[in-house]
């Protein structure tokens, strides 16, 4: 592991504008995703705007060494990109950083960040935002939809743009932020909010079904129970939904008007 010194000149190797250019490319980090190298080309593409500044002999070595496998959550990958830039900036200024150190850094941080990012963004924040959006859409609140969209995008875009800056400023040190108790605490809070929003949608669904009549509410509750049972067995909700259509029509055909 490379010892990180509080090296102010390493931070000044790249300007904020350089980091912003990398961050903007990180917005489309999934564009070059493929099974063999996963996001290796995306990382190379993101680092490309600053390669001339960090690779003063004008060779392609700085980029080409990232052709190896790289996989991370796209919202946390900018942290890794920033960290890689920090190591390259330190090397430029004479610190003993080898290619193996850079590869080790990527390998060490990408997998935990991938798991944390998937849990936080894909597993919690996105479903929560969509649940909230559904509630607002059900009650025709255009303002609510816009606010939800702004909040969600504020978090994600900030994470991608600021991630590069944060990774570059901290280098290896940013690992401390994620290895402490802060992240699990944040995740627990966000999950609690997500569960509360989920509960609100559950209530809205049950209330609207109850308004249609007792029969409708009973069928809704039964559908929820069947769907939960099926989802727990890795079943497909859309397939069950499609199967339900002929069943509903059949029941309507045989039941008195």
């Amino acid at each position, binding site marked *: 592991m490379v010892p990180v010194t509080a090296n102010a000149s390493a931070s000044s190797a790249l300007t904020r504008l350089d980091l912003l250019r990398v961050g903007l490319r990180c917005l*489309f*980090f999934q564009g*070059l995703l*493929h099974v*063999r190298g996963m996001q290796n*080309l995306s990382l*190379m*593409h993101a680092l*490309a705007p600053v390669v001339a500044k960090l690779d003063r002999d*004008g060779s*392609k070595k700085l*980029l080409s060494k990232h*052709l190896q496998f790289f996989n991370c959550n*796209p919202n946390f990958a900018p942290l890794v990109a920033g960290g890689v830039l920090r190591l390259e900036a330190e090397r430029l200024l004479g610190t003993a950083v080898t290619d193996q150190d850079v590869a080790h850094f990527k390998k060490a941080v990408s997998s935990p960040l991938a798991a944390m990012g998937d849990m936080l963004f*894909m597993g919690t924040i*996105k479903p929560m935002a*969509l*649940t909230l*959006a*559904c509630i607002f*859409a059900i009650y*025709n609140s*255009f303002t609510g939809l816009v606010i939800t*969209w702004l909040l969600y*995008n504020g978090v*994600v875009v900030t994470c991608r743009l600021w991630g590069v800056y944060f990774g570059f400023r901290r280098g290896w040190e940013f690992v401390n932020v994620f290895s402490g108790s802060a992240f699990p605490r944040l995740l*627990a809070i966000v999950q*609690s909010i*997500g*569960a*509360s929003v*989920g509960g609100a*949608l*559950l209530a*809205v*669904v*049950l*209330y609207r*079904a109850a308004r*249609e009549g007792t029969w*409708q509410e009973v069928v*809704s509750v039964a*559908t*929820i129970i*069947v*769907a*939960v049972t099926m*989802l727990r067995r890795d079943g497909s*909700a*859309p397939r*069950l*939904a*499609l199967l*339900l*259509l002929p069943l*509903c*029509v059949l*029941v*309507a055909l045989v039941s008195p*008007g």
Partner: protein
Amino acid sequence: MASWINPNETILLAMLAGLLAVDERAGWQSLLSNPVYIAVLVGLLLGEVRVAVATGVALELVWLSILPMRGSRRPDIVSGAVVGVGTSCLILRHTADPRELLVAAAGVFSGIVVGHLAGALNRGVGRVRGRSLARFEIPAGAGAGPLVRRLLAAQYLSLFSYFITAALVVAIALPVTVFLGDRSTGWANAPVVRGAGWWVQLLPAFGAAALVQNYWHRHLNRFLLLSAGLVLVVLWFR
């Protein structure tokens, strides 16, 4: 094919689907590429926001259980939602059918079917794209310039492939689903209308089930139940 299917509208929706597919698969997934927001966009474009939102919310809640994790066999929610919502809006706008739930049911059904077919197509296109990206080579010769240019070209080509796949799916599927939806709603008798209405009203239960499944853990179920109880009380006494 019904003569009122406007090619300009089809092209407009195809372009929208292409752009949203880039956001969904390559971009930062801004939520605009999710059915509930697609419904608002398509509804505003076609001037039928009410039925669009009803269709979009139903599609969103049905697909809520499929998280966008890597490795999950996801349907193409962008193409599915644009086709589903577009079908509802176009049928309603051109036939002025007062049976809104039936029209929404036609849209939701079309959306789910097209989403799953397009999902399979996407996986095929993705394999071809993946194979071509896996063959990426560092260009011979000194200097980073050619490598940077090749990376940029690969990125643009990849984004274009996302765009064109979704746009083509919508351009081909939308006229077909509008035609079939229009015919089937025209033939539907009273019991079928009633059954389709029940179906649309039951679909939110799938979203609720997905949320219960997602949050039914020892530490989270109390938040889910407490919030559900509180909101129910508020709604009841409102």
